Structures are given as structure tokens and as C-alpha cells.
């Protein structure tokens, strides 16, 4: 049997990174949360994001008004150009599938297959203040609907001229955010 992980250093060495809570305790701060009320919302925007962190993490539980397959998109700094791409690996419950979205006007980070059950996700937005690098986003997300569902590993790129991210807009391809949807943005030092 391999030795157990017994130290923070050994956990880090095995590549758990942002998913290793012991490495970020005390350096993980809530920035802003949006919870959707009874009237729903067409989009959710986080603006004036402070530049004092190293990474951002977006955690959500979402409910889509749209009844069938619908993607959740992310845009940065109001950029509506075709400056976003993504790759994904997902499980449908019967097969594992790789997917790619060519340059498009928003970065897909989530997918809701039904409006009857919540879909959830955790997105890490890495080195968001850099003015020298394009921005990358990794997401673990999914929705299980008691007999159907998908789990995704999303990887996204914003390839506009490198700039610090100061605002994030979230929207669906077809639907709107229904009541009880909640999106929380955190900063990681």
C-alpha cells in the first residue's frame, strides 16, 4: 500500500492544487453572491471585481427556465467578440465524450439538461489579473436528474488581448435564471 498523504506538502506534490482546502484556508474570501428571486434574471453580472487576489472561484447552484438542453456562458469585461473557446470531457451516463466549441462570443462553463433539477458547478479562473497572459478557466459541473444527467470537465480560454478581469457576465444560450439560482464569487490569495 502506498503511504498516506500526511502533510500539506505531499498533497501539493500530488497535484491537488486548488482542490486541496488545507492549502487555501485563511486565503479564500467571499467577494459577492447573487441569488435570484421570484422574478428570475436574464443574466448575472459581477462587476468591479477587486484585483487583490491571485485566482477567482465561482461556485453555483443554478436553475434554468428552459426545459431542455441549454448551455451556461461566461463573458469577461463586456467582451462580446468571438474571443472564447472551450474543450470539454463529459459523461452522459452511458458514454464518455470529448467536445470542442470553436471561437464564439461566450465561454461555455455549464450545461442544464432540464429545468426540473438544479445544476451545479465550480469554476476556477486562474491568474485573472495578469496583463500578459490569456485567461483560462477550468470547471467541474453537472446535473443529475434521477435517471438522466451529465457531468462535465470544462476547459475554457479567453483569447482577447490579455487584460485583467474586472467583470464577469453569466447567461444562458436560451433560458433565464430561475428562482433559487445562486452564484457566489470567491477570491483565492
Amino acid at each position, binding site marked *: *500500500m502506498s503511504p498516506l*498523504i500526511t502533510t500539506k506538502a505531499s498533497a501539493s506534490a500530488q497535484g491537488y492544487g486548488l482542490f486541496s482546502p488545507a492549502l487555501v484556508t485563511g486565503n479564500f474570501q467571499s467577494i459577492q453572491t447573487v441569488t435570484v428571486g421570484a422574478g428570475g434574471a436574464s443574466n448575472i453580472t459581477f462587476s468591479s471585481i477587486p484585483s487583490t487576489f491571485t485566482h477567482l472561484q465561482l461556485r453555483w*447552484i443554478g436553475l434554468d427556465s428552459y426545459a431542455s438542453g441549454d448551455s451556461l456562458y461566461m463573458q469577461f469585461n463586456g467582451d462580446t467578440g468571438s474571443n472564447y473557446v472551450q474543450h470539454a470531457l463529459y459523461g*452522459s451516463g452511458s458514454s*464518455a465524450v470529448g467536445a470542442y466549441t470553436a471561437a464564439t462570443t461566450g465561454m461555455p462553463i455549464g450545461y442544464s439538461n432540464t429545468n426540473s433539477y438544479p445544476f451545479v458547478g465550480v469554476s476556477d479562473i486562474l491568474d485573472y489579473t495578469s496583463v500578459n497572459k490569456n485567461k483560462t478557466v477550468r470547471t*467541474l459541473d453537472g446535473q443529475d436528474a434521477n435517471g438522466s*444527467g451529465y457531468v462535465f470537465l470544462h476547459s475554457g480560454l479567453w483569447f482577447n488581448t490579455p487584460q485583467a478581469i474586472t467583470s464577469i457576465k453569466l447567461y444562458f444560450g436560451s433560458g433565464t435564471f430561475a428562482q433559487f439560482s*445562486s452564484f457566489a464569487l470567491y477570491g483565492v490569495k
Partner: protein
Amino acid sequence: MAAGSTYTPIATQTLASATTTVTFSSIPQTYTDLILVFSGASTGTQGYRVGLGNGSIDTGTDYSETFLSGSGSAASSGRRTGYPAIVDPTVYTDQQTIIHQFMNYSNTSTYKTVLYRSNSAGNEVTSGVALWRAPSNAAINIITATAYTQNFVVGSTFTLYGIAAA
């Protein structure tokens, strides 16, 4: 502006003897999400079962899940419905880490959805999403982790963290 530090350790259990089930009870309702981190191994290859409840663990057939696995030679996906717990991923006899994220666990308006990820370098990597159709949309205040028909080995650790949104 940021609202202050979060990602708070709520409780940690380090096993001094081989144990089948570890329980976290009376979980405070003051956070937005919970994260359970397991680092350890099992005495045999079996399902790492997670039970959820409010006051007591729900052992009804209220759990379902969809998962994605890579074995080193192929990727696959599967689904389970009508189980008495979240029954994946698999826990092995060599070292691995399993992380469950219980999203918006204290709300009483929706079913509860859980993301999980398992890294077992000697066996497989797995990600999954699970649904607990909580009776009356109950909040989660008790969680169990079980090495089904086996024991977690001495030295295995379980840590429960809370994340509070602004």
C-alpha cells in the same frame, strides 16, 4: 469588497483503528457549501458510500448519480438511480483522495446536488454529480462516509470544510 476569509475547517477525523463508517453530525447551517475531503485507503476495493440526512441519515432510495471515469486505457460513463446512498466512486486499497462538494446544502427550497472527484493514481480518476431527493427539500446536517463492506485503514483522514458566501 471581499467579505472576509472563509473555507473553514469544521471537523477532522483521523482514524486510529480500522473503521467502516465515519459520521459528521450537527453540521452548522451557517455556510453555503460543504466540502468533504477523504485521504486514505480501504481494506478492500468497494464503493465509497456517502449518506445524507437531516437529523438522521436517509437510507431510502432517494439518491442518483452520473459519473465519468478514466481507467488509464479508456474513458467511460455510468449512472445509478434509486440507491440508498451516493455509492461512487470506488475506494481502493492504495492511497487516494476523494472530494465531495455539497452545494447550497442548507437551503430548503431545492433537492441537493453534490459534485465529487476521486483521484486514485494506481487505479482511476473519476468525477461525478449526484442528486439527493431530500424529503421536503431538507437541509443537510449529517453526513456519513462508508467503506461499503470494508474498513477504512488506520491513518485515513476525513475533513469537513464550510464555505460561506457573502
